[in-house]
């Protein structure tokens, strides 16, 4: 009877299409918005992923990577004195203003790397050499900077110069970096030069990057460093998640995206539930006839669930497929943010299953109440 159930569904084209469209839209809305949300959350922790150090040491009051409370230079030495530290280097991270040759301005995320080791260097140099960062006024700029400057009519290439806080910066290499939350280009230079580019303050160092000795885990080392007064150390993954949770707790972003996902659920339940209910109502007299002819309730329930889950499965597949196409396209241009971890389709599949169960249940309720004798009325 399951084949009969599918034929009944597929050949009722109007309702079948409406169910598919409704569930596809619902699935697309939830998957796409959840993926954009995950992408946006990834952007918040771009600095952690770009620098990549195992242990990060901040002022004790810092709660996430984009919140910088400058430290004294002496803190590097204090960190180096903690047992289990293989090495420790200073890092500067700050938003500075770059002035282009045409006089226009662009905020940039300036990253000052330890001059000797270049710890935290860009993961992918697309043109030029990282070693050239030791040349006078040298900076490396990422793909976001190239694109933003291009929009302003300036082509960035090796040798291009611009100013950061009235000091000349010369591009010696181009790189690819994870995009930051506010979309500012990453501009890499040496730590010492970064301090020259930045506006002077009493304390300038943003944080200390550290590496544990062999046999010491990053979390053990972070715990040891955090015992130092005035400092707080994070293991890389902890900093990554603390940053994301900070944005989830302290901004309206989850509410905004959550509302859209909830709308997807409501739209799905409303369209799929109502259409499926109508489909069952339209077929009620035939289902009663089947009941009279000897179809037992488990058979009818299996038919209804198969019909409901068929459209659910197809709608889910189309929705996730369309989202993947969307993601494939936007990942090329890197905007809007997009990241679809496996949990997103699993979550959406769970919601679609709930919608299918709900739709089937309201249809089954009608069938269960149905006396086979009604076919004689």
């Amino acid at each position, binding site marked *: 009877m399951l084949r009969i159930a599918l034929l009944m569904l597929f050949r009722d084209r109007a309702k079948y299409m409406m169910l598919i469209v409704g569930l596809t839209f619902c699935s697309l809305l939830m998957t796409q918005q959840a993926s954009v949300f995950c992408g946006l959350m990834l952007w918040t922790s771009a600095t952690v992923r770009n620098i990549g150090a195992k242990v990060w040491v901040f002022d004790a009051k810092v709660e996430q990577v984009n919140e910088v409370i400058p430290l004294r230079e002496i803190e590097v030495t204090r960190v180096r004195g903690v047992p289990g530290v293989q090495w420790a280097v200073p890092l500067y991270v700050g938003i500075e203003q770059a002035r282009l040759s045409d006089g226009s301005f662009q905020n940039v995320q300036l990253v000052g790397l330890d001059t000797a080791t270049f710890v935290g260097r860009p993961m992918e140099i697309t043109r030029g050499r990282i070693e050239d960062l030791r040349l006078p006024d040298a900076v490396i700029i990422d793909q976001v900077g190239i694109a933003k400057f291009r929009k302003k009519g300036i082509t960035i290439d090796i040798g291009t110069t611009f100013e950061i806080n009235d000091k000349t910066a010369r591009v010696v290499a181009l790189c690819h970096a994870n995009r930051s939350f506010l979309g500012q280009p990453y501009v890499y230079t040496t730590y010492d030069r970064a301090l020259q580019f930045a506006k002077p303050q009493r304390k300038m160092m943003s944080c200390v990057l550290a590496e544990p000795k062999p046999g010491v885990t990053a979390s053990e080392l972070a715990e040891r460093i955090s015992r130092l007064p005035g400092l707080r150390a994070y293991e890389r993954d902890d900093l990554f998640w603390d940053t994301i949770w900070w944005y989830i707790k302290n901004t309206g972003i989850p509410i905004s995206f959550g509302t859209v996902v909830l709308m997807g659920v409501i739209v799905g339940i409303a369209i799929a539930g109502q259409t499926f209910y109508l489909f069952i109502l339209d077929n009620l007299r*035939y289902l009663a*006839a089947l009941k009279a*002819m000897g179809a037992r309730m488990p058979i009818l329930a299996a038919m209804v669930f198969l019909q409901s889950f068929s459209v659910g499965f197809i709608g889910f597949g189309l929705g996730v497929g369309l989202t993947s196409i969307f993601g494939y396209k936007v990942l090329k241009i890197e905007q809007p943010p997009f990241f679809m971890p496996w949990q997103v389709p699993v979550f959406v599949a769970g919601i679609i299953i709930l919608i299918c169960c709900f739709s089937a249940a309201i249809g089954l309720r009608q069938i269960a109440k149905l006396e086979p004798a009604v076919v004689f009325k």
Partner: protein
Amino acid sequence: MNSPDASIAVSGPAAVAVRNVTKTFPNGDTPTYALRDVTFGARCGELTMIVGPSGCGKTTLLSVICGTLAIDSGSIEVFGKTLGSMSNAEVTGFRSRNVGFIFQQFNLIPTLTVVENVSIPLILQGWNYRKAEEKAASILEDVGLGSRLRSFPKQFSGGQQQRVAISRALVHDPKLIICDEPTASLDAKTGHHALELLKKSACAPDRCVIVVTHDSRIFSFADWIAEMEDGRVVKSCPAAEYHHA
């Protein structure tokens, strides 16, 4: 004219025996009696008609005979099986094996082709689709619809749909054929043809056909007629006697 009790004492093997059956429907504080102590019988090899005015209990009697409606009291035996002693699942299984239905509105599923519609009783019994459709196709050929197996019910006239419904009722060789107002949706000529077909293809020595109708134009097809009034069988006799009574 025979008394209702006498109707069970039939010459052929008894197919259906309804004894002292009462059926009520709740209606506020006072129940409405649909069947009042009804006794009725139908034999194999005959076409038995249950006739009477609207609301007299014909359809209720048909429903309790095929086990789609529970009774308040009395007993019903169909081919020696007492329906009241069976569980719901057993009654459903018994019905799927032994009862063929022809409904007033045909109840052919509009999204299935006629061959798929006719194969349903076989599929319900666990036949595979290919074999069920082969058997359905052969029976549709017998009723003159062999060239339109893949057409949908809405592409057929009322008379043709009734032929499909008759095929569906007969495809699994049931012992009991239940017909509810089979001519109600048909004009006189088509109704006549449908009854001719039913009589020719359904009536067999080991099979019992019960037809509920108030269409007096088809009484001539009956072998036995039971007349109902106000929830009671008031007359039950051979068809020939009924016309003279």
